[in-house]
């Protein structure tokens, strides 16, 4: 039921809205169909980013893919958390160590072990459009724990213009979501893995 609901919501509703009204163009979307399980890593400029990736997923995959979202932002109220859970399947994580919420890496690792896929924005927060911030280490630790896991790099351009941080009004502009082909990490150290992913994303620019 839920799979059908999310599949229709994203595969038809959100996708047509993004393509017709917002002006999102997908490049090499076939990359998503090549593997069953993967972790998507992307640059991050806007709330639209997650929608744009979810809207690109193959119909049956939507339920299986969990965006990793900041608990302090999207879980700040019960209503916000409820909406996020209902419409996105998101896994909410903590961003600071001072809370007693579960360890983010363990949450992600458990999802991967269950055979599920993730969407990760290693920049941590939406930065200035056109500039990439330094990546957080989480993705490196996760891929070190699961070296068999495929990652799909994505570079998005223009999302920060459509709905920048702190703005509520969505303005249509042509935007591009460029998918890289799924691949496994060659590096084994946390830092080098992070670097490899960063380069893979920048290559799509």
């Amino acid at each position, binding site marked *: 039921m839920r799979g059908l609901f999310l599949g229709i919501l994203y595969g038809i509703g959100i996708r047509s809205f993004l393509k017709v009204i917002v*002006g999102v163009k997908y490049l090499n979307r076939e990359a998503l169909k090549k593997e069953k399980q993967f972790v998507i890593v992307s640059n991050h400029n806007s709330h639209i980013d997650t929608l744009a990736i979810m809207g690109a997923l193959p119909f049956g995959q939507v339920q299986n893919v969990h965006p990793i979202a900041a608990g302090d932002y999207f879980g700040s109220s019960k209503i916000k958390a409820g909406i996020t859970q209902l419409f996105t399947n998101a896994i909410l994580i903590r961003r600071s160590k001072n809370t007693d919420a579960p360890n983010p890496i363990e949450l992600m690792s458990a999802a991967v072990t269950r055979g599920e896929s993730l969407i990760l924005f290693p920049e941590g927060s939406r930065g200035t459009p056109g500039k990439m911030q330094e990546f957080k280490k989480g993705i490196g630790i996760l891929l070190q724990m699961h070296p068999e896991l495929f990652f799909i790099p994505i570079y998005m351009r223009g999302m920060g213009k459509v709905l920048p941080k702190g703005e509520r009004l969505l303005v249509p*502009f042509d935007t*591009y979501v460029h998918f890289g082909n799924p691949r496994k990490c060659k590096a084994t150290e946390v830092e080098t893995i992070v670097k490899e992913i960063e380069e893979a994303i920048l290559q799509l620019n």
Partner: protein
Amino acid sequence: MNIFTSKIYLDNIEVIAIIGIIIGVLVFASTLFYVWGLLKPTADLKELKTRTNSWWAMAALIIITTLVHPALSFIAFGLLSFVALRELASISKNVRDEDRRVIIWCYLAIPIQYFIAYKGWFNIFVIFIPVFMFVWIPFMLVIRGTTAEIGRAMSVLPTQLMLTVFSLSHLAYLLSLPNLEGFHAGGRGLLLFVVFLTEINDVFQFIWGKILGKNKILPKISPNKTWEGFIGGILSTTILAYFLRFLTPFTGIEALIIGFCIANAGFVGDIIISAVKRDIGIKDTGLLIPGHGGILDRIDSLSLSAPTFFYIVYNLYYAG
């Protein structure tokens, strides 16, 4: 969605004839380029192929919407204007970050302009964008309060509206023109006439340029365009206009003059958009991701030929 209204148009033998011709030409073009590509794999046919494909889309759009319900044509043309304006606003470097909220006003002008066209309110139609929006947009920019480079935004945004919305809405307005006695094809015939001639003019220019092209006409803006292509295209289009005049109320002489005007306006529209793109550096640096053909390339010639054609016809046959 009254399918039976289509009967009215199917009675129009002229419209059926031109639909047949368009589909025939497109089938011929697609087959030609396919075979040409097979015989000569080195030939660069990408431009021709993408153009043909977009004509298929445009032909399908015009034919289907006019056959199903007239109002659909207005929605379809409005959507075309929207996508074109969005593309132009996205690539323009003169649109500042602060202007994003003002661009919403530009987008909102689209449904209003097409609604006016649908209703056939001619006096409002001709002033809404060139007068009202030309005041409204600067006003909205001013109350946002950022004055740095505001003059650019004030001129660029209304000009983008003119190129993508005002111009194309004339195609839709053709469908709102009243019936003339003794002229059966009506607005539909006029619409097909101007769209078909504008697009075929592009092809004629391209083909003549390939065959005879030597002297560049505007090397800094469009390096592929030549005097030979330009003149050959205009002559061919003018002659073709004479034979397509059964779609219009024109006499032979009028058809020749109007065909000549459409061909010239199409060329001018084409190079205006080329110059805008060159200014942004799209053709040189590949700013946009390769393989993406924008909608602007498809409607550039129409954006000038449509209003040119419209006002000639209007003043000759519908005014007063």
